[in-house]
C-alpha cells in the first residue's frame, strides 16, 4: 500500500510539473496559434540560470526571481526575432521554426554550461523528507506542489481580473475582434511567450532540484506536449488534469511495468498514452472540436 502511494505521489508531483509546462504551451497556442516545441528548452534554460544564480550564492527568492526575469527576456526576444516574421506562414514552417529554436537553445546551453550534469549547491530545498502518515515524501515534491498551486492561483487571478489577462483571453477568441477593441495583438503574443518561458523555467527549477541539472531535462518539454494532446490544445484546466493523468500513469508504469520489460518505460509511456488518446479523442479531453469548412 505504502509502495503504491509512493508511486502515485511521485506521479502527482511529476504531473504537476508536466501540467505547468503544458500550461505555458497552451497559453502560447491559445493566443498566437503557434505550437511551441521549444518549451522543453525554456525549461532547460530556466534550470541552468537558476544553477548559475545558486552557484553565485544567491538566496532562494533571488534565484527564482533571476529565472523569472531571464525567462521573460528569452520569451520576448524569441517572439520578436523568430516568430513574428512567420505570422500567416504554413504550420510546417512554424513547427520547424520552434524545433530549430529548441535546437539552437540547447546548443547555446551546451556552449555556455557544458554537457556535464550538475546539482544545485547549496540545495534549493532542505534534504529532510516530510512524513505523512506512513508515507515519506521528499521536500522538493512538496515545494513543487506549493509552487504550482501558487502559480495556478496567480494565473486564475490574472485571467479573470487583470487587463492584460483579459486581453489575452480576447485575443485567443478572435484576432480581428480583439484588434477592433483596441488590444495590441502583437504585444499579447509577446506576453504569452514571456509567460510560457517563465512557467517553463520555474518548472525547470523544481524538476532539476528533484533530479539534477542536465540536458535531458528538455525531454519533459516533449512529454508535456504529449500532455497537451491528451488535455486538448485550448484548455488550461485540461493541461493540468492531463498532466496529472500522465504523471500518475508514468509513476505507476515505472513502478509496476519497468521490472517486467527491463526499465525505461517512463521515457515512452507518455507518448503511448497520447497516441491512444488521439485515436479515441482526436481533440483531447477538453479541447475544442474543430469544424472545418472549405
Amino acid at each position, binding site marked *: 500500500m505504502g509502495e503504491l502511494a509512493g508511486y502515485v505521489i511521485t506521479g502527482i508531483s511529476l504531473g504537476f510539473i508536466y501540467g505547468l509546462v503544458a500550461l505555458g504551451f497552451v497559453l502560447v497556442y491559445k493566443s498566437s496559434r503557434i505550437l511551441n516545441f521549444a518549451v522543453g528548452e525554456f525549461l532547460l534554460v530556466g534550470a541552468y540560470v537558476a544553477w548559475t544564480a545558486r552557484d553565485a550564492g544567491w538566496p532562494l527568492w533571488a534565484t527564482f526571481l533571476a529565472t523569472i526575469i531571464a525567462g521573460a527576456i528569452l520569451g520576448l526576444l524569441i517572439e520578436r526575432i523568430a516568430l513574428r516574421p512567420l505570422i500567416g506562414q504554413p504550420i510546417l514552417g512554424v513547427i520547424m*521554426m520552434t524545433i530549430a529554436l529548441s535546437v539552437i537553445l540547447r546548443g547555446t546551453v551546451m556552449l555556455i554550461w557544458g554537457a556535464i550534469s550538475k546539482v544545485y549547491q547549496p540545495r534549493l530545498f532542505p534534504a529532510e523528507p516530510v512524513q505523512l502518515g506512513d508515507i515519506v515524501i521528499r521536500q522538493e515534491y512538496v515545494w513543487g506542489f506549493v509552487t504550482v498551486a501558487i502559480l495556478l492561483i496567480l494565473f486564475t487571478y490574472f485571467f479573470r481580473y487583470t487587463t492584460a489577462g483579459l486581453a489575452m483571453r480576447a485575443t485567443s477568441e478572435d484576432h480581428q475582434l480583439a484588434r477592433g477593441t483596441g488590444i495590441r495583438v502583437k504585444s499579447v503574443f509577446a506576453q504569452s511567450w514571456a509567460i510560457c518561458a517563465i512557467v517553463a523555467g520555474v518548472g525547470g527549477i523544481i524538476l532539476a532540484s528533484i533530479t539534477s541539472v542536465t540536458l535531458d531535462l528538455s525531454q519533459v518539454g516533449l512529454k508535456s506536449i504529449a500532455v497537451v494532446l491528451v488535455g486538448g490544445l485550448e484548455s488550461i484546466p485540461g493541461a493540468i488534469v492531463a498532466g496529472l493523468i500522465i504523471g500518475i500513469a508514468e509513476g505507476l508504469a515505472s513502478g509496476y511495468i519497468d521490472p517486467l520489460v527491463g526499465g525505461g518505460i517512463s521515457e515512452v509511456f507518455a507518448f503511448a498514452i497520447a497516441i491512444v488518446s488521439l485515436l479515441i479523442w482526436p481533440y483531447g479531453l477538453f479541447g475544442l472540436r474543430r469544424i472545418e469548412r472549405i
Partner: protein
Amino acid sequence: MLPAGTFNMSYEQDMAIIRTRFQWGAFITFLIALFALPLYVSDHWLTLANTIGYTLVAMLGLNILTGYCGQISIGQAAFVGVGAYTAAALGHHLGWSAWATLPFSAITAGFIGLIFGLPALRVKGFYLAMTTLGAQFMILYAFNHGGKLTGGITGLGVDRPAIGGFVFDSEEKFFYLIMIITIVMVFFAKNLVRTRTGRAFVAVRDNDLAAEVLGINLSYYKLLAFFICCVFAGVAGWLKIYHIGSAFPDHYPLMDSIWWLGFLIVGGLGSITGAIFGAVSYVMLLEWITILSPMLGNWFPGVSHQIFAALGLLITGLVIAVFIVFEPRGIHHRWELFKLYYRLLPFSY
C-alpha cells in the same frame, strides 16, 4: 518555363523529364562524372557521398509524405531504423543474404509506418507531428529493449553483401551500390509525383477537405503516402546498415528525423530537386562543422570536448531558422529563379 525555342510537339515530349539535347548531354556527363568519382577523390569523400546517398533516399520518402502529401512526420529516422533492424535481424539470426533482406526491409518499414500513420486518418498537422514523434521514441525504445531480437544496446552485426565472390567491403564498392539504388529511388520518386497518385497527394496537401469532395479517397491516399515514405526509409535503412556493418539504436536518433525535415525546407519542400539539395547541403554542413569545430574549440575552453555537438546543434538550427524566415521555399526556388534568369538571359523581360 521551357528554354527558348523548345516546344512540345507531342505528348511524349510534354511528359519527358529530360527535354533538350543539352540536358541529355549534361545528364550523361553528370552520370559519367558521378561514377568516375572513386577514381579521383579519397575514401573520406566517398564516405560522404555514400552518406548523402542514403540520407537522400530517406529524405525523398519524407518529401513524398510531408512535401507532397502534407502529412508532417518527425519519425523518419526511426522508420529508417526499422528497415535497418529488419535486415540485421534476418541476416544475423536467420543468415539471409543481404539481397534477400532488401524487400523485407522495405516492406516491414512500410507496414510499421502504416501503423503509425493510422492517426493521420483522424488528425493532421501538429497532432500528427506528435504521433510520429511518439513513433520515434517508441521504436527506439523497442530497439533498446528488444532482447536477443534487436541485440539491445550492443546492436547486431551483419555480413557485407556479396555477388558471387565479389564482396562489397570498401567505400569504393559501396559507392556504386548506393549510387545505383539512390538513382533508382530518385527516378521512382520523380515519376511517382507525376502520376495520378502524386497529383492526389498534392490535392490532399493543399486542402484535404476539398480533395475529398473531388472524390479523392483521403484515408487511402494518406496511408499510401505513409507506406511509400516508410518504404523509402526502409531502403535507406538497408543501405545504411550494410554500409556501417552493424545496427545500433543510437544510429537512428530523433535529431536525424528533425534535421531531415528541416533540411527538406532548406532544400525546397515539395520538389525532388529540393530533396537532393537538402540532402547534399545537410551532409556537407555537418562535414563543415566537423572541420570547423576544433578551431572554434580554442574559443570555448570549458566545453572543448562537446564543441562539435554544441556547434552542430547551434549552426544547423540557425541555418534552418534563417531559411524559414528568409527563403521558406528553399534552395530549389532560388535554383528555379536562376534557371529562369539564364534561359531568358539577354531579354530579361
